[in-house]
Structures are given as structure tokens and as C-alpha cells.
């Protein structure tokens, strides 16, 4: 496949090439919606069936870390949009800066996610043999706030009073939690890889007002991954916070 400048040989014009790339990414995002759709359906069905256990599971999540990550991700969407704009108006230096900022924010998000996963591991909330919704309130650590532990103990016991199988149904919640956030994190990692590639190309000065399709379509992808989180955050963190 030969290439003249930025135009691949099987296209007639740059416009045709750009239109194809953008349409391709939109179609890909449609498939992504359906891909996550299966998980959202599984979540909806199970939450409808076991709303108490799902509420209890949701309340064990760290809302501060989750909220922080939400802000981080929205910020990264802003920097990504700025990178696309800079490429379109030909501010080559700004493109690199905003791409690096986006990559940085994405990395922060993933780092916080690691901390959260570690917490779940410590609290015996990984689905499997050792899973126990009571574990944290029964084995508090010296660093834990006793008041908080008391409230959690009361809440968990209330849930067990309503649903004796809270441990089984809580496992379903956490299976979905890890599947959904895990798949989302995987998309973030892919996005980070794409950003590294873009940053390299932008240092080489490849993006101009005439040719910036890669920045634009990676931008589309990045915004999509953000939007998935915008749905995940309330569905996983906020469903039972109103008492």
C-alpha cells in the first residue's frame, strides 16, 4: 500500500481519507456501546433482584476516591478536547502539552483505581472463597475510625436481616463491579497507549490544520471511555447514599 505524503494510495483525496477514519471510529464506538451494554443489562437485572445487597455493596466503596477520579477524568476530557482544537488551529506546541496532560490525568485515574482495588482486597471483598461482607466491621484496623466502623456494622447487619444471602448477592455486585470497572480500566490503558503514540507523532510535528485525523479520532475514543465512567460512577457508587 503506497503513500503520498499523508494520503494512502487507495483513497482519492485527503477529505475522503479523513471522512473514512472518522466514520470508522464512530462505528467502532457503536460496537463499544453494545459491548458495555451486555454488562449494563446484567447489572440492571441483578440489581433489580437483589437491591439490598447491591446497596450494601455500593456503600462499601470509597466515595471520596470515586468522586476524585470522576473529576480527574472530566478534566482529562477537557485537555483532550483542547489538544484536538490546538491541532486544528495549528498550535503544534500546545498539542503536545495537552496530550501529555491528558495522559497524566489518565494515569492518575488508573493509579487511584489500583488503590481502590487494594482496599477491596484488604476488606475481603474479592469474589471467591474468602468473600465476606462482614469482614471489615468485624476486623477493624487500628487506623480505622471507630465511629465509621460502628455505622458500617449496623448497616451490614441490617442488610443481613433482610437478605440472608447477602454474601452471595454481594459477590454478584462485586463481580459486576470488577468486570465493569476492569473493562473500563482496560479501555483507559488502551487509550493511554494511543496517547503515547500521538505524543510521539506530535513531537515529530506531524499534526497540522490539514492533517490531524489521528488526534481527532483518538479524542472521540477518549471521550467515549469518559462517558462510560460517567454512567459507572452513579450506578456503582451512589445507588444507596440517601439515608
Amino acid at each position, binding site marked *: *500500500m503506497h503513500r503520498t505524503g499523508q494520503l494512502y*494510495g*487507495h*483513497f*482519492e483525496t485527503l477529505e*475522503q481519507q479523513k*471522512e*473514512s477514519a472518522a*466514520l*470508522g471510529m464512530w*462505528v*467502532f464506538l*457503536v*460496537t*463499544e456501546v*453494545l*459491548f*458495555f*451494554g*451486555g*454488562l449494563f*443489562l*446484567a447489572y440492571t*437485572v*441483578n440489581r433489580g*433482584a*437483589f437491591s439490598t445487597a447491591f446497596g450494601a455493596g455500593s456503600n462499601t466503596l470509597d466515595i471520596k476516591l470515586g468522586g476524585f477520579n470522576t473529576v480527574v477524568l472530566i478534566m482529562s476530557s477537557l485537555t483532550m478536547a483542547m489538544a484536538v482544537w490546538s491541532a486544528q488551529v495549528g498550535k503544534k506546541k500546545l498539542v503536545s502539552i495537552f496530550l501529555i496532560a491528558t495522559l497524566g490525568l489518565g494515569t492518575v485515574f488508573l493509579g487511584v483505581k489500583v488503590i481502590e482495588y487494594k482496599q477491596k482486597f484488604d476488606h475481603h471483598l474479592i*469474589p*471467591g472463597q474468602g468473600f465476606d461482607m462482614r469482614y471489615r466491621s468485624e476486623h477493624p484496623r487500628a487506623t480505622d475510625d471507630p465511629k465509621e466502623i460502628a455505622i458500617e456494622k449496623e448497616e451490614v447487619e441490617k442488610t443481613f436481616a433482610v437478605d440472608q*444471602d447477602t454474601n*452471595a*448477592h454481594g*459477590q*454478584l455486585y462485586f*463481580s*459486576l463491579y470488577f*468486570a465493569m470497572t476492569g473493562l473500563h480500566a482496560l479501555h483507559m490503558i488502551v487509550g493511554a497507549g494511543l496517547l503515547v503514540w500521538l505524543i510521539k507523532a506530535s513531537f515529530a510535528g506531524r499534526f497540522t490544520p490539514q492533517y490531524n485525523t489521528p488526534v481527532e479520532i483518538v479524542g472521540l475514543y477518549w471521550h467515549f471511555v469518559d462517558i462510560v465512567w460517567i454512567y459507572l460512577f452513579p450506578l456503582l457508587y451512589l445507588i444507596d447514599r440517601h439515608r
Partner: protein
Amino acid sequence: MSNTPPTLVRELPHKHYLNATYGAGLRSWLLTTDHKRIALLYLASVTVFFFIGGVLATMIRIHLLTPGGALVTPETYNKLFTMHGVAMIFFFLIPSIPAVFGNFLIPLMIGAKDLAFPKINLLSWYIYVIGGCFVLYSFGTGGLDTGWTFYTPLSSVYSNSAVTPAVLGIFINGFSSILTGLNFIVTIHTMRAPGMTWFRMPLFVWAHYATSLVMILGTPVVAITLLLAGLERMFHLGFFNPALGGDPILFQHLFWFYSHPAVYIMILPAMGVISEIIPTFARKPIFGYAFIAGSSIAIAVIGFLVWAHHMFVTGESTYAALTFSFLSYLVAIPSAVKVFNWTSTLYKGSISWDPPMIYALGFIGLFVIGGLTGLFLACLGLDIHIHDTYFVVAHFHYIMVGGAVMGYVGGLHFWWPKITGRLYPRSLSRFAAVVLFIGFNLTFFPQFILGYLGMPRRYHTYPPEFQVLNVLSTAGASILALGYLLPMSYLTWSMRYGRVAGPNPWPATGLEWKTDSPPLTENFEVTPVVTWEPYDFKNRPDLGLGTGTPSPAPAHGDD
């Protein structure tokens, strides 16, 4: 591109995509981005899986020769039909026509140099091969005994066979299908030659547009579903396991949300093939072009709304069942539109009995039987009686083998001169088409009767009174096998020894016939400009249908 009359050709073109070199030998094939070469890579690999699936089917039919089972243990029998289904559905039928003919022909038919994303096209083949290796690994290390449907909790908890690699293989393979569909949609939108308007596109391209819609909307759902089932098996999670609060019916809904539309991934491209063959050998514009194009889209859309008719006996609500039953009937309308339009095209046509035409006529006959028995199954009350019997087996084989594979083999005969530049023996191939038709009917028609009499599918034994029909079916299968082996051998033979075909041997009206056979790597020497309507034999002196040859039939049968 002008429509000048043809000249006789006796030699292959000097330069074409098969002898063009970019790098040496094998490398120039494994790293190619030429859609035509990738199509041939797919042709080779789907043939491997067709062969594997065929051997397994043969073993099933030999086993069922006697009521007690003649060949294998019950456990092995379960593995035979499962692996037959997985190999045939996911690795032969779904990629067959789209990835081979769609890949080869869509750019040629719309006057493009290649698909929009040639590298992604090659990637999709590699993904297919990797997925295929996972599945072959599963077949070789314990086999697979869950049925091709992977119902949970059998697949996720209880099965002792190699489910995990198989599920991962199908998950991976799904992305090959998604990327192919994505590539086709974008190509059809952005790569059409000047003058190639939407309603000048061959109906084959319309059929592939509809197929691609199903591929991109359905495949991700089965991918995530099988991934969840795989995670459930690997990490003992409970998504679909009732013992842990999960819901096995949820798995079935998600699975059939893809796997019913997947039937249309198999049959729509075959319908596209038939829509090309029929007007060519009736020498007539196709009857009701817009309706055939629209019916492809309608099948794709309605096809997404019928999945729960696979689940009438799961205890779903009566109202849901009634709705799905009604919607399933609706699919018959666009399907019938196609059949009636094909037969109307034949009416007062100037019909020539070339091999592709015999396959196409065979397709129509078998598809009508398969389609009508589908209505029996969509009928709520009757389905309770024939659910999970050989009636279902016969029905879907009439659609998938009688329909999709017949279309595939017909397409192979139709475009073989374009792909290889050579013709195959005419009488032998017509004979093979008839063998295929007879063998197929003898194999599967008795199964309708068996099913109606109550023989359940997936059982390794049956009561002695069913033996006669089973022996008939097995006898038919051996004739059917001959019907496949014959084309395999003479097509292979023709690659070297066949008569040179020339650019347009039939002749047909599509843009793909206006370039050399085999085509150049860039498909056309100059980008064609399309100024004529599709399937128009009258205003095309370049087809050589003037004096001395049968004159083209009138455009409208009644004038």
C-alpha cells in the same frame, strides 16, 4: 470507463494481483494488505474449518446408523455435535461469504482500489486465525460438550471439557467479525466510484451492508456474554449461576440476542450472491431492485427483535412469547419479497443453465423449505411440540447448509473465473450441483419427519422404529459429501489447467467484470465512472450480447 464491445482473450493478463510481488513468496501473502489476497487467505482458512466440521458431521451420521449408536461413547457423541456446531457456525458460516467474497468483491463492485482500512482487514484475518487456534486447542485437549450454545451453568460450572479456551477463542474471533463489518460499512459509505450511487450498487453490496449492521451490533453482545461465562468458569463468579444468585435465563437472552441475528449474517450474504447470479443467467434486469435492497435492511432490523423465540419453553411470560412469535412471523415478509422477486426475474427471461445458475435455483428451493418450516417453529403452540427435536435440526440446516452453503458454493462457481482467471469443467460442475441438491435433501428431509415423530436432537440413541429414516439420512450425507468433494477437486484442478476465462465470461453486468481476470492489484487501471443502471443488459454493448448470441430479454416481462 467506456462500454466498448469485448475482444476474445486467450491468455491471462500479463500482470495481476496473484503474480504481483511485494516482497518474496510467503511474506507477500502473510503481510499483504490487498483485499483480494486477504480474501484468499480467508478462503483457505474457512475451508480448513469446513473440513473439520464436515468430518465431525460424518462421524455423527455414522454413529446414528443404528439405534444404539454405532461408533462412539455417549460422552464423545456430545463432543462431536458440539464441535461440529462451533467449527461450522463461528469459523465457517459466519466468515464464509462476507470474509471471502465480500472482501474480494465489494471494492471491485463499487469501483474502489481497496477497502477503507486495508491493514485492519489483514488484522481481522490474524484475529480469526488466533481465535481458531484457541478453539482447535480446546478440540484437541478434552473437546467441548456443552452444545454450540454454551448454556450456563453447564458450560460455566459442570462441564468437564475444555470450555475456557473455546469460549476465549470465540470471544477473540468475534472481533474479526466486528472489524470486517466496520470495514464494509465505511467502505460502502466513502469509497464508491463517481456515479456509483446507492441505488446503482449491486444487490450483493446491499446484502453485505445489512450483514455488516448485524455484525457490528450483535457480535459485541455475544463477546461480552461469552467473556462473562468464561470469567464465571475461571474465577467461580456467579453471573449466570443460580446457586450463587445469578440467572441462567439472562445468559440465554444475551446469547440469542446475537445468535439469532447471526443466522442473518449467514443467510443475507448468500441472498446477495443469488441476487447477482439470477439476473446474469436470466439476461434480465432484476425485478424490484429497490425492494430486494430494502428487504435486506428489513431482515437485519427485524432480525434483532425475535431472539426470544429460541426460549419459548424457558417459562418466559406468555405475552413476551406471543410478541416474539408475532415478530418472528414478520421476518417472513422481506424473505418472501426476495424469493418472489427472484422468481419474477426468471419469468420470460432468457435462461442459460450454467453451473452458478443451478446452484442458485437449488438455493431458492431449499431456502423456501427452510423458511416455511421456520414459520412452523415461530408458531408458539407448535413449537412446544417440535422444540429441541430433529425438526429444528432439519430447519436450520435447510437455511444454513441448503441456503448459506449453497449460496457460497454457487458464488464460488460464479466468481471463480474472476478470482483465478480460469474456467472449470462445465458438465462436471453442473453434475456436482445436482449431486449436492439430491444429497442435501436426502440427508435432511427425513429429519423433518423424525423430528415431527418426536426424535429429540443431541441424543446418541433412538428407538428402533426411527432407524429407516436415520439410515436414509446417513446415506444422503455420503452423497452430500461427494457434492462437496467434487467442486473442491475440479476447482483446484482448474487453477492450473482450466481454460482462460477472459474478463467477463458469463457475461454479467457488475463493475467487477469490467476489469481483468484476475484483476490488477489496484483493481482498475483508471477509476471507473459509472453512467449506467445496475443489471441493465440492453445498453451494454461491452457485454457482447449483439448479433449471433441470444438477444437480451426485454426489461419487463410483459412487453
